[in-house]
């Protein structure tokens, strides 16, 4: 039995901002969904099923908000499935939707992920109460900073690498009209002089807290043939999970991330990711995760990731552009951030990324992670239909 090839024919995002006080949660998700349908030249009636994802329900204070959002997303009378896999959820949600098409359960599926973080305080939403966690661990940065420090010790990377990533991503964001942070007057010196938040992570090396939604329309070969714009084809997709804490866990380069990438590359027939992949949208919520993931995803040998960053290879005009959209460092509606990575990878191979388009991108990787660096979701999309 062969799988149906899956094509991305519609992509929509909201303009990500700190607080969308002008719309309800329903208004926010509908805006992204409507734009994805418009991109695909489809109507609500063309959608067979809706797959929706977001991070913890406490962020908006609504339990299982998909129930209330059924009307806004045109899901009444249709299947609607809600995915929650921590920070990787935007990617996982897209993969669950893609499987519905691949398994020929449905022909055309709307998938959407969102977060309206202004409804609450995300940092404290992520800080688990006693008895679940020691009380001084504030926010995700408090969890990840020691692992960044471990990477620096392990590789001998200079202290300034993180600031290079932050400066690059924030400049890329200036070319992306949907990015949250548009800091036109930011300089590398300002990044390096910004306040230390969680040593060694400075304020300008962290992601913002955003309101935003991202939607995609996925369809089969027949749907792709009717699409008004070039589709992106899914060449491989996978999820991997490992426990939060255990003796022997490598927080710097988790095995689940390596396994997930290997699975995706195998499906897509990629043997040399650095040369065969033209653009990467990876989940970098703190600047140092770019060199760390470059190694974890097989783009660099162990200990060498920071050298690729330092050399300028990951710049928009470099040999391996990473986060041409500005990435999570410029836009972070948490539940949507993974789907934005997947969608931005698809925009690149469709040639529809606008000012942040990577010239001639034919294959791109979308990457998401979550929890205690334990949940991974990735897909590889191409401009051509998959060969097998």
């Amino acid at each position, binding site marked *: *039995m*062969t*799988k149906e090839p899956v094509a991305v024919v519609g992509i929509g995002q909201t303009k990500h901002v700190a607080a969308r006080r002008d719309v*309800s*949660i329903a208004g926010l998700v509908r805006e992204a969904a409507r734009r994805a349908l418009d991109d695909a030249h489809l109507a609500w009636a063309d959608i067979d099923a809706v797959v929706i994802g977001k*991070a*913890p*329900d*406490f962020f*908006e*204070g*609504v*339990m*299982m908000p*998909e*129930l*209330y*959002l*059924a*009307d806004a997303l045109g*899901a*009444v*009378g*249709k*299947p*609607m*499935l*809600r*995915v*929650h*896999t*921590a920070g990787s959820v935007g990617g*996982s949600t897209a993969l*669950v939707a893609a*499987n*519905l098409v*691949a*398994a*020929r*359960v449905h*022909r055309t599926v709307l998938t959407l992920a969102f977060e309206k973080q202004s409804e609450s305080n995300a940092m404290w939403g*992520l800080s*688990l*109460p006693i008895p*679940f966690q020691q009380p001084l661990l504030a926010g995700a940065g408090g969890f990840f900073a020691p692992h960044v420090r471990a990477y620096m010790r392990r590789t001998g990377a200079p202290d300034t690498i993180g600031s290079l990533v932050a400066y690059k991503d924030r400049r890329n964001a200036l070319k992306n009209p949907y990015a949250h942070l548009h800091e036109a007057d930011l300089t590398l010196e300002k990044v390096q002089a910004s306040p230390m938040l969680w040593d060694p992570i400075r304020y300008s090396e962290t992601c913002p807290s955003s309101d935003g939604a991202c939607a995609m329309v996925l369809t089969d070969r027949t749907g792709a043939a009717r699409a008004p714009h070039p589709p992106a084809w899914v060449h491989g997709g*996978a*999820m*991997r*999970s*490992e*426990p*939060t804490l*255990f003796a022997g866990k490598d927080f710097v380069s*988790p*095995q*689940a991330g390596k*396994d997930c990438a290997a699975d995706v590359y195998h499906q897509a027939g990629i043997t040399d990711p650095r040369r065969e992949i033209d653009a990467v949208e990876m989940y970098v919520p703190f600047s140092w995760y770019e060199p760390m993931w470059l190694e974890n995803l097989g783009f660099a040998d162990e200990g060498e990731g920071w050298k690729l960053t330092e050399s300028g290879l990951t710049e928009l005009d470099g040999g391996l552009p990473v986060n041409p959209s500005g990435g999570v460092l410029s836009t972070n509606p948490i539940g949507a951030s993974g789907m934005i990575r997947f969608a931005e990878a698809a925009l690149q191979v469709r040639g529809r990324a606008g000012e942040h388009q990577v010239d001639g991108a034919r294959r791109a990787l979308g990457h998401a992670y979550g*929890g205690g660096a*334990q*949940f991974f979701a990735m897909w590889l999309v191409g401009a051509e239909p998959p060969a097998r």
Partner: protein
Amino acid sequence: MTREIREIAVVAFAQTGHRRTSEELSEVEMLMPVLHDVLARTGLKAGDIGFTCSGSSDYLAGRAFSFTMALDGVGAWPPISESHVETDGAWALYEAWVKLLTGEAETALVYAYGKTSPGDVREVLTRQLDPYYVAPLWPDSVALAALQARALIDAGLTDERELAAIAARSRTAAAANPHAQLRGATPPGDPLVAPLRTGDCPPIGDGAAAVVLAAGDTARRLCDRPAWIRGLDHRIEAHSLGVRDLTDSPSTRLAAERAGAFELPVDTAELHAPFTSQEVVLRRALKLDLPGAEEVRINPSGGALAANPVMAAGLIRLGEAAARIQRGESDRALAHATSGPCLQQNLVAVLEGDAQ
């Protein structure tokens, strides 16, 4: 659309003894014996499983990312292919079924758990409602079910005697179910929210359940009589109660049609109806009240009226139906799960055993 459906079956089912409180156990401690039990029934180890998917709710656990603790209990090392839905485990089974349909996995472990005892579940479930117009009024789950029951009575579709009979039948059936929380007939009780009496409402309790799915010959190897999933579909309705006919469940009927439930008669129906009145709605939508359907055994497990661990109770319906097929007590069974206020979202599965 014509397509060749891959043969996929439920090959094992396990559940806790559901209890009013499990305050001495964490969610993980409650779940672990069930995972060990369901894997032991197949001889598989966690590392043999191709895909794992779970269903649970942070709002019941009272913390964000509560499912990650359960994953630690699964023993996800070396790393596993895994996902999670923030709803009843029946939808986790649906996601796993789709994964198996793609051919990317041969087996799947599905689990779900919920502890409703630590909080006030009626109040907690109000947080599911439209956050702008309805949730601020805090209408609780029993009050909303009572609205639905009143609509049914006013429409002449049921009466309090019939509702009491459903409660009595369910709990009498549960006497034979060692996992049930309320076993044996209970009195109708006092009015809780008119017209519903305590007997019309589900018990508050904690529990977990797990299922193993397998494809084709793997299923035949793991199980003497696999419960083949002949059809599986789910549908959602509008959220606003004001635009719905609460006496009907068009989403259940449509899911059943798509699952092929009406193509041949079933002998068993496990319905996820936490309130007696909701069984009336579901029986009508599933045509179980029509002439000829008198022989269908409805909720031989006792259903959600006998044990209602929220987030697991729907998956348990699928598990109970499959277990009856495996025991040779059913040849073709319908299983149903619901989510949301007043049966907003519904899932229907049709399970069959090979000829005996």
